[in-house]
């Protein structure tokens, strides 16, 4: 049953795609092929798929923990950016430092940057009750503007002919590749590792249990001796740290420099990934691949069919609406069926 609704949602999105492409005057079969099949037929695009899925998965795993605890962090884009900025400080400010320590330090700083930035909405919520949805989102806009300022101002590469970009990172500051050529960097492993750890801790640890209780029944969480505030802070810190890690990996492993646009909306697409993966860390890995497919397919469609890549974002948004709808429809149907087969004393009293 838990597989059913994402599948229905994906099918519905494909149908929408077919209708949309027809309306745009493009052969729908060909378009859907370019969008969703072609990327998985070639080795380089498969690699690209994994490289794009990695940050989505890292962020979405953290978001899933938040959403399970009923904490609405939607500022992952900002935490991703903060991680990228923090981690990039080393190669940009100390471009000549060549040491094995550079990379680990960058990664650690990236995680810290994301955590610190995520701590703001958490603390504002705990201390003042400020709505975390709005604060975390506003902070995202601010982070993007700060990045913009940095790469156009103090951190701009003097030799860049006024292009808004930082210096290119040295080899010491570049994530090593998993295979000798191509683009598959070791950051991908972090995503898999994070998914495994999150899955185990969610099912078997007391902290995972605390997150579930807090998300299901805040009053019961208090009764169980869990502090809502501590849970809010910790899921924010974890998701911020993962988003920050994704940010620094993207900069260090893919872009090799800071630019005003380091993310094609990963922080927001990860929300969709989290829901598509049913907030389950392992399923999120699959969901991230699917969303990554839509990015690459969008690029392909633009190149081959002259269809604007903006279609991608439409698909992503529609997919999320469909998942939410299907989830409820299916759950609703099951409720109807069970209430018919089980005699419930509550109903009589109701």
């Amino acid at each position, binding site marked *: 049953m838990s597989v059913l609704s994402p599948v229905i949602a994906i099918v519905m999105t494909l149908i929408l795609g077919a209708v949309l492409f027809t309306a745009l005057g493009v052969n729908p079969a060909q378009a859907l092929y370019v969008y969703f099949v072609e990327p998985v037929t070639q080795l380089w695009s498969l690699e690209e798929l994994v490289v794009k899925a990695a940050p989505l998965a890292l962020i979405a795993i953290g978001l899933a923990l938040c959403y399970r605890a009923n904490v609405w962090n939607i500022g992952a884009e900002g935490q991703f950016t903060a991680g990228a900025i923090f981690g990039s400080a080393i190669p940009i400010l100390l471009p000549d430092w060549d040491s094995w320590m550079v990379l680990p330090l960058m990664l650690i700083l990236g995680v810290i940057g994301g955590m610190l930035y995520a701590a703001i909405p958490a603390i504002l919520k705990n201390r003042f009750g400020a709505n975390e949805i709005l604060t975390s989102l506003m902070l995202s806009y601010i982070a993007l503007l700060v990045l913009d300022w940095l790469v156009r101002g103090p951190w701009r590469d003097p030799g860049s002919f006024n292009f808004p970009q930082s210096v290119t990172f040295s080899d010491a500051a570049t994530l090593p590749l998993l295979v000798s050529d191509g683009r598959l960097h070791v950051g991908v492993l972090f995503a898999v590792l994070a998914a495994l750890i999150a899955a185990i801790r969610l099912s078997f640890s007391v902290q995972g249990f605390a997150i579930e209780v807090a998300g299901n029944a805040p009053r019961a969480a208090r009764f169980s001796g869990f502090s809502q505030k501590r849970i809010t802070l910790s899921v924010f810190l974890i998701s911020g740290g993962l988003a920050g890690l994704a940010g620094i990996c993207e900069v260090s492993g893919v872009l090799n420099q800071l630019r005003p646009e380091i993310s094609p909306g990963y922080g927001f697409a990860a929300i969709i990934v989290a*829901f598509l993966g049913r907030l389950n860390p392992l399923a999120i890995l699959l969901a991230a691949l699917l969303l990554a497919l839509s990015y690459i397919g969008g690029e392909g469609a633009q190149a081959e069919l002259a269809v604007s890549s903006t279609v991608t974002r439409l698909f992503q*948004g529609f997919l999320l609406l469909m998942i939410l709808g299907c989830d409820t429809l299916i759950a609703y149907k099951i409720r109807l069926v069970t209430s018919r087969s089980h005699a419930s004393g509550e109903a009589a009293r109701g």
Partner: protein
Amino acid sequence: MVDWPVVAAIVLTIVTASTPLLLAALGEVVAERSGVLNLGVEGMMAIGAVSGFAATHATGSTFAGVIASAIGGMILAVPFAVLVINLSVNQVATGLSLTLFGLGASAMIGDKYVGVPGIKLPQLHIPGLSDIPFIGPVLFGQDGLVYFSVVLTIAIGWFLTRSRGGLVLRAVGDNHDSAHNLGLSVLGVRWAAVLFGGACAGLGGGYLSLGYTPLWTENMTAGRGWIAVALVVFASWRPARVLVGAYLFGAVTILGFHAQGMGLAIPSQFISALPYLATVVVLVIISGNKAMLRANTPACLGKPFVPTR
């Protein structure tokens, strides 16, 4: 000496920066008073902006554009209403997805309008009155939507406190079970409120692409929909306070740019960040006053209503 024409120009830009916030936030007040938290305002604004621009482009009439923007926002509110009201889906998640969907759809629809010059909403000109220094352009030289937004504020204020319809709306937002027991149509009231909210958000978006900057760019709403949602909290769900709040935010946005224009050496990015920062600060201040918030928050806000057969 005060340079009155310059001050008037500043005030005019503040008004144009504030009006989209005001329109969108007014719609959200109505929706939230009925108990529905719609976080899709940003998406509905984006759709309103693109549909207003497209309709104006196609017909050459800004009036048609304004109507189209309202309809666009309302249409986007439909899937939200189905999911949230009829299927009781989590309102936060659905609102988020509505925003993502609306931004994506608007980007796609608007793709062919990027770089196309638009038509600006005509400004009122009353010979004589509009020519009075300072007062003239500020009071008698705005476009129609500005006046409409002020009238709408008063109308919604009246509706909520004085009319029976408003009483029913507040009742549904306060306790949907009791409202249902009384025979009031909870779902009907909420549908109407959400559609109205969508139309208002659409209008707010339309004002962006027709009045604020008459052109279309992707993501031109730039978080204004979210600021509008925050404004509703800031205003503790009261239309008159929404007006004050919207104009405060408009002023913060515009004064920053003027400060920069006057030679203050602040990077433009920091000026652009001001409204977002202001939103965070305002939320913190408002949320600190828990008693006031609790007394004003619609008790059923965000809670799904499942009729007991």
